[in-house]
């Protein structure tokens, strides 16, 4: 039983780590010790964390699977592609409208988001194979909707029974003629988490869609926004700001996106990466094949938003854009600042913990620090070492046996369409100003010394952390929300935003300040004990006597 009691001693991080490991069987303790890191500057080295390794069975992980990373995260948000799940009904059902990637159906109105498609495999399909049923399902979908594309997602049993979904896809694509059909081998058991699914999705999107449409695109300062999924309308707010600055978004991977955005992505002159973990593969491949450089951006937090806009403007280097960006920041910031000043007295000095997928546990610390709040501990479900320690560790990463079968595709410069966006001289000039490409420093440098960084946090550790460190707010997902709140600690979902948002950009910052103020200062946390529980002693006299 966990209870949040009054803190009596100030725990040292080493004590907390010891406390977390105490209960484990020896083997588990050894493994977890490498995934719990005390953030400290060591002599000549940065601390090293173990990440992207298999989950410990029975530990009550927060993680999901490869299919979720592929279908649920990357491919789900595109409105005019029919996502057909090949498997028993569950996988399709659970990914049906449960991620809040909002969508504007646009002028053509083609929008399959509210639909859920499945081949609903039965035992006969497991025994005799499901290829025929899959082909028939593709035909039925085509006859009903005539979509631009039909994508197929493998689930656990598909790989085991040996259904060749790629051949079915190819055959059907030829047969239908005007519909792009391709498949993802994203069986749930592949890799160790959602992360493998991101990679598989990146590969197939790049292979089957990017570069399909060579029509020139109108607009100035053309960018791709990579790794932004429009949860709670985040992407809408970012789009609003970019439009206001005069920046043209060719594609968003993949919030509120369309087939054509993927197909035209190679027409952009810069890729801006929001969620590094899920989309860095595509960012790299677009650079190699088409010569589009990429930069890391962050639109979570007002300051970070301003910084990211300035970075984009600096890249294009035209005074007109630089001035426009400054004007937009100047126009947007006063309202943000007014709300910030309003909440600061009630949020300053409060503490937070963040355990979110593979990106938000880092970005959201910016918002908390804008509110004067400290992050005590953070971590990811499924990030890799580069997301923790920075991309400089990539050459030293070893792919272990569990992830070895995730395909790495070979990409070469496109003989016709490769075009470096900057000359050597321009690149050197940018470098001289301290401008960096392809760089992400990870979460560790942005966290204070002595904070705890924990990979693949589990239920037991979450409870223990809250009990020992008593944060004022704990951020994770739906599976963690209510056990934390039972302890009397406010909990904010940073996957679904608890149905709120947007939290990106300037308006998002305002929403977030207000939301956290509401949550940490809610009256409800004072109601946990009844009067007779607080003072159980019998009163000596009756007042009316």
């Amino acid at each position, binding site marked *: 039983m966990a*209870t*949040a009691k009054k803190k009596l001693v100030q725990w040292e991080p080493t004590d907390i780590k010891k406390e977390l490991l105490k*209960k*484990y*069987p020896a083997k588990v303790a050894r493994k977890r010790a490498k995934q719990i890191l005390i953030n400290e500057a060591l002599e000549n080295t940065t601390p090293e964390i173990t990440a992207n390794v*298999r989950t*410990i*069975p*029975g*530990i*009550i*992980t927060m993680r999901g*699977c490869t299919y*979720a990373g592929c279908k649920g995260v990357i491919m789900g948000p595109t409105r005019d592609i029919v996502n*057909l799940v090949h*498997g*028993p*009904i*569950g996988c*399709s*059902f*659970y990914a049906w409208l449960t991620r809040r990637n909002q969508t504007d159906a646009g002028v053509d*109105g083609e*929008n399959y988001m*509210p*639909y*859920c*498609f499945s081949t609903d*495999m039965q*035992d006969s399909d*497991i025994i005799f194979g499901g290829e025929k049923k*899959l082909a*028939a*399902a593709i035909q*039925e979908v085509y006859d*009903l*909707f005539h979509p631009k594309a039909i994508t197929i997602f493998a*689930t*656990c*049993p598909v*790989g*085991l*029974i040996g259904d060749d979904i790629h051949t079915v896809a190819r055959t059907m694509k030829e047969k239908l003629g005007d519909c792009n059909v391709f498949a993802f081998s994203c*069986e*749930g*058991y*592949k890799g*160790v*988490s959602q992360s493998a699914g991101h990679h598989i999705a990146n590969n197939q999107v790049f292979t089957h869609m990017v570069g399909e449409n060579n029509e020139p695109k109108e607009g100035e300062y053309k960018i791709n926004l990579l790794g932004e999924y429009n949860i709670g309308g985040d992407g809408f707010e970012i789009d609003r700001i970019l439009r206001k600055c005069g920046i043209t978004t060719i594609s968003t991977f993949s919030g509120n996106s369309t087939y054509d955005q993927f197909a035209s992505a190679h027409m952009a002159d810069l890729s801006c990466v929001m969620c590094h973990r899920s989309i860095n593969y595509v960012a790299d491949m677009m650079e190699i094949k088409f010569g589009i450089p990429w930069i890391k951006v962050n639109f979570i937090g007002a300051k970070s938003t301003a910084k990211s806009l300035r970075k984009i403007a600096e890249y294009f280097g035209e005074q007109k854009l630089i001035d426009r960006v400054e004007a937009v920041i100047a126009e947007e910031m006063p309202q943000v600042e007014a709300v910030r000043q309003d909440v600061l007295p009630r949020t300053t000095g409060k503490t937070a913990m963040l355990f979110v997928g593979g990106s938000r546990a880092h970005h959201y610390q910016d918002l908390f620090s804008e509110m004067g709040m400290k992050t005590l501990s953070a971590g990811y479900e499924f990030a890799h070492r580069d997301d923790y320690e920075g991309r400089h560790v990539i050459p030293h990463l070893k792919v272990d046996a569990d992830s070895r*079968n995730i395909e790495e595709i070979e990409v070469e410069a496109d003989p016709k369409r490769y075009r470096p966006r900057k000359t050597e001289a321009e690149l050197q000039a940018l470098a001289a100003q301290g401008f960096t490409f392809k760089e992400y420093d990870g979460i560790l440098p942005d966290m204070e010394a002595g904070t705890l960084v924990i990979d693949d946090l589990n*239920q*037991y550790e979450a409870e223990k952390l809250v009990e020992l460190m008593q944060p004022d707010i704990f951020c994770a997902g739906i*599976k963690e929300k*209510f056990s*934390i709140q*039972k*302890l009397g600690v406010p909990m904010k979902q940073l996957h679904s935003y608890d149905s709120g948002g947007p939290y990106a950009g300037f308006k998002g910052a305002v929403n977030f300040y207000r939301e956290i103020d509401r949550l940490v200062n809610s009256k*409800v946390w004072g*109601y946990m*004990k009844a009067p007779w529980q607080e003072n159980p002693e019998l009163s000596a006299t009756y007042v009316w006597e």
Partner: protein
Amino acid sequence: MLLRHTPKEINERSAVTINPAKTCQPIGAMYAALGIHGCLPHSHGSQGCCAYHRSALTRHYKEPVSAATSSFTEGSSVFGGQANLLQAINNIFTVYNPDVIAVHTTCLSETIGDDLNQIFDKARKEGTVPAGKTLVGASTPSYVGSHVTGFANMVKAMADLAEPTGKKNGKVNVIPGWVEPSDMEEIKRLAKLVGADITLFPDTSGVLNGPLSGEYHMFPQGGVTVAELKGCGDAIGTLALGDWCSADAARLLDTKHKVPCRILDMPYGLKATDRFIDALRIISGTVVPDEVSYERGQLVDLISDMHQYFYHKKVALFGDPDQLISMTEFLVSIDMCPVHIVTGTPGKRFERRIKELTKDSPFPVNVRAKGDLFLLHQWIKNEPVDLLIGNTYGKYIARDEDIPFIRWGFPILDRQGHQYFPTVGYKGGLRFLEKVLNALLDRQDRDAPEEKFELVY
């Protein structure tokens, strides 16, 4: 229009399911296992299933839902998941210390053919199961049946824990089926009024509707205990509420331990509740007190008071077979007209039962087992209705077609109440009809021209 691509014209589909009216087995097993006291459900498969099932249940209840998983990797998928499950059992007992681990499977472990009992034996032999702890296992392949099937399979595994002593204990087993914690609470209350000594299993009341007190208990007070489950074999009889959810477990107790059973409908509405109370009275040899008859009379009173608003209203409903059968009967009994009825769960006898219940309907009735919401929506486009009843996914159809909508069933992701207030029994019937009237009369108020806007209904 949210579902703008759904055409009115119906072409039969043989291969693609669109907008399912069911989900897969393991989530049902997980829900059932949460009705065992001190139990940690365990999903033997890759971890995505477990994450999805916990999330869905948590979104429905706004409560913590703990469950562990074997976290298969590609290696385990090829060589079998025995090592994963053995490690998991050891880790779970060491770290979380439940009284019971209730293991269910997924399409992954079923396809490779892992044998739970053999793995359990190995775990016991290796000494990783502490004294007094229990392992329960149910095979729940996702490519057979639906979440209802998974629930039934886990309940059957619970019944299989029975260890008769040869001496009857005077108790009655009541298997409530997949109903809400609030419904289980209500069934226990009614049984107490009738004076029947019952063992209710599974029982999620006190597990999935708990208080906020500053303490978190992974294993709350509620749930049926293993001792009670062992005692099921000494019961004088079993009442199984719902053929799909509860019959297998009841029949197992009957054939294996000679505990006679009756399969009844789930006690939604007047008549099904009548049959349940009557059966409970007869089997336990008690007298139904006036209090229960009084509650029943209140429900009849409400039906008569408001009958004009129910009369010949067309209803579309979707959900799970046992629930739909009782609800269809209830609607028919107050002269409402269920016209489109869909379940995603297979079973031809569902269609037969619904046809029988609606045979005197003034309107043609569509019914489909293994149907989906895409089909239901098409039926509605061709034959509009006055009311839609179903889980949260119905709100998309309700909005597009502008139909009054009542959330009932699983999952309800966007409203509260199901975990706190029953819809079974006479009291539940009252609450349900209140919902029906609110939906219909709100619509009447919204649409009435000013000169016809009424103060009194």
